[in-house]
């Protein structure tokens, strides 16, 4: 079954901006799905329409088969959302924010308290339950929004850049939490600017740019299309002369750092041999950027050309 079904979705804002140009998208039940795109591509508008915070201009949206136009209440019950920006009252206590959300979904007080305890403990916020939300750190605020979104046990969870601005340790904890949640059966749609995050977590990826879906496929297949990688070499000593190789384009970043483009069809040993022959000693080597990031840039820039 489709957790999310979008057909011909369009949005034109009152100022004439065509934010979405008739996109189609399907997310299968149980999937961990990434919706990627540059700023202003239409990600937040898409999420806004799914969560009924933005009125669509045309098209159809169904959540677990429930049409937003005809069966909105049932659709909303299936959906949990963690928005990009903090959207809770900064004057309320953590526990009140979570239990009130349960109340909006018509959960009785006892159930609300039990679930609030469960999720606040899972997200390491239980000790902060009586704190006023504005006193929380950025990472805690993000986790609070996740706890709030889960309180009614949604089947589909949408996270709009959930790890923005949180440190790497908390980010990895959140990844573990989301992976576990997905294994328990919750379908997750994630937008992120950390493409490493999408590569590690998501099985399927759609890339949206300029209001159109320009790619929608399995993460593995998408990465398989990457035919080249750029490696960065840190040298032990500064280069005394300019070096060139016919098969491996070399860019000199500074006198002890080289960038080398390696096609998948080539053998990198060949390049090491070349370095040895030129008596160049390498201290360390790394990928210039995450693989998905390179592909993303290639696809988005390709679209613009």
């Amino acid at each position, binding site marked *: 079954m489709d957790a999310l079904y979008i057909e011909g979705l369009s949005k034109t*804002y*009152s100022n004439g901006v065509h934010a979405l140009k008739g996109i189609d998208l399907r997310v299968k039940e149980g999937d961990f799905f990434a919706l990627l795109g540059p700023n202003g591509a239409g990600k937040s508008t898409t999420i*806004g329409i799914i*969560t*009924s*915070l*933005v*009125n669509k201009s045309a098209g159809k949206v169904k959540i677990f088969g429930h049409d937003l136009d005809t069966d*909105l*209440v049932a659709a*909303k*019950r299936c*959906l949990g*959302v963690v*928005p990009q*920006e*903090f*959207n*809770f*009252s*900064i*004057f*309320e206590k953590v526990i*009140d*924010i979570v239990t*009130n*959300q349960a*109340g*909006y*979904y*018509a*959960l*009785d007080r006892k159930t609300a308290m039990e679930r609030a305890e469960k999720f606040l403990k899972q997200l390491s916020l239980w000790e902060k339950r009586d704190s006023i939300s504005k006193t929380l750190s950025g990472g805690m605020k993000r986790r609070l929004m996740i706890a*709030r979104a889960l309180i009614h046990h949604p089947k589909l969870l949408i996270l709009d850049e959930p790890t923005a601005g949180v440190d790497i340790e908390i980010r990895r904890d959140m990844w573990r939490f989301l992976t576990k949640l997905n294994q328990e059966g919750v379908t997750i749609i994630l937008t992120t600017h950390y493409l490493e995050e999408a590569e590690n977590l998501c099985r399927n990826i759609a890339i949206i740019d300029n209001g159109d879906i320009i790619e929608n496929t399995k993460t593995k297949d998408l990465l398989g299309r990457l035919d080249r990688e750029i490696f960065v070499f840190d040298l032990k000593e500064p280069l005394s002369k300019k070096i060139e190789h016919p098969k491996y384009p070399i860019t000199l970043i500074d006198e002890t750092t080289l960038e080398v483009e390696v096609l998948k069809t080539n053998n990198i040993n060949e390049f090491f041999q070349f370095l040895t022959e030129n008596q160049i000693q390498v201290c360390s080597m790394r990928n210039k950027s995450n693989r998905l990031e390179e592909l993303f840039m290639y696809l988005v820039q390709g679209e613009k050309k």
Partner: protein
Amino acid sequence: MTFQEHYIVFMTIFRKEFNRFMRIWTQTLIPPIITMALYFVIFGNLIGSQIDKMQGFSYMEFIVPGLIMMSVITNSYMNVSSSFFSSKFQRSIEEILVSPASNGIIILGYVAGGVTRGLMVGFLVMVVSIFFTKLSIAHLGVLICFVVLTAIVFSLAGLLNGIFAQKFDDVNIIPTFILTPLTYLGGVFYSIELLSPLWRSISQINPILYMVSGFRYGFLGISDINIFAGLSILILFTIILFSLNLYLLKRGVGLRS
């Protein structure tokens, strides 16, 4: 959604609203009491002692119902307009908008919060007035009908203001330029019998006159208007404002792009 589910959602919004104004009671409950106590001292005691009886009652007795009603109107209106607008401003309104809560229940929840604050402040002002004059109640049923319906009408009006408001200034424009003049000219401090026929006719367009006079009838048994006309106007305003709010929430005016 079942009736029970609607009730849970309503109680959640109401509890949140109640906790909000109780959390800031020094801003929401105390200032109107101090203001009204000053009215009692200055207009009632100092100036009022120099004024003849008004429709058979001392000036202090005459203005107390009007001043109680004035605090109910202001507080029920301000509670909903400021709370709803700040929910929009902080975007915490999205918590409710993404949930299955129906628009009707959202309105009822906010209005219940406004009515509760209005009635609480009205009650406290009434308690303070006992220190200045003897209060008697002529028609309890009429008094309750008028005060509750007025609080509902102004809570609904406050919600309307909150829906349309784009910035904090917008929340204060209506109370400053419309609500306060209409209240002062609505017979709080005088009987319209004192006015010339022309101004008496003009005053009868002011809906607040009906609310104040009806409420005064509940206390003193005297009124400038027909009580049934007053009740009818209040019911009519309740229906119109509720329907308008419902329509605007459904359309997502001020809430959805």
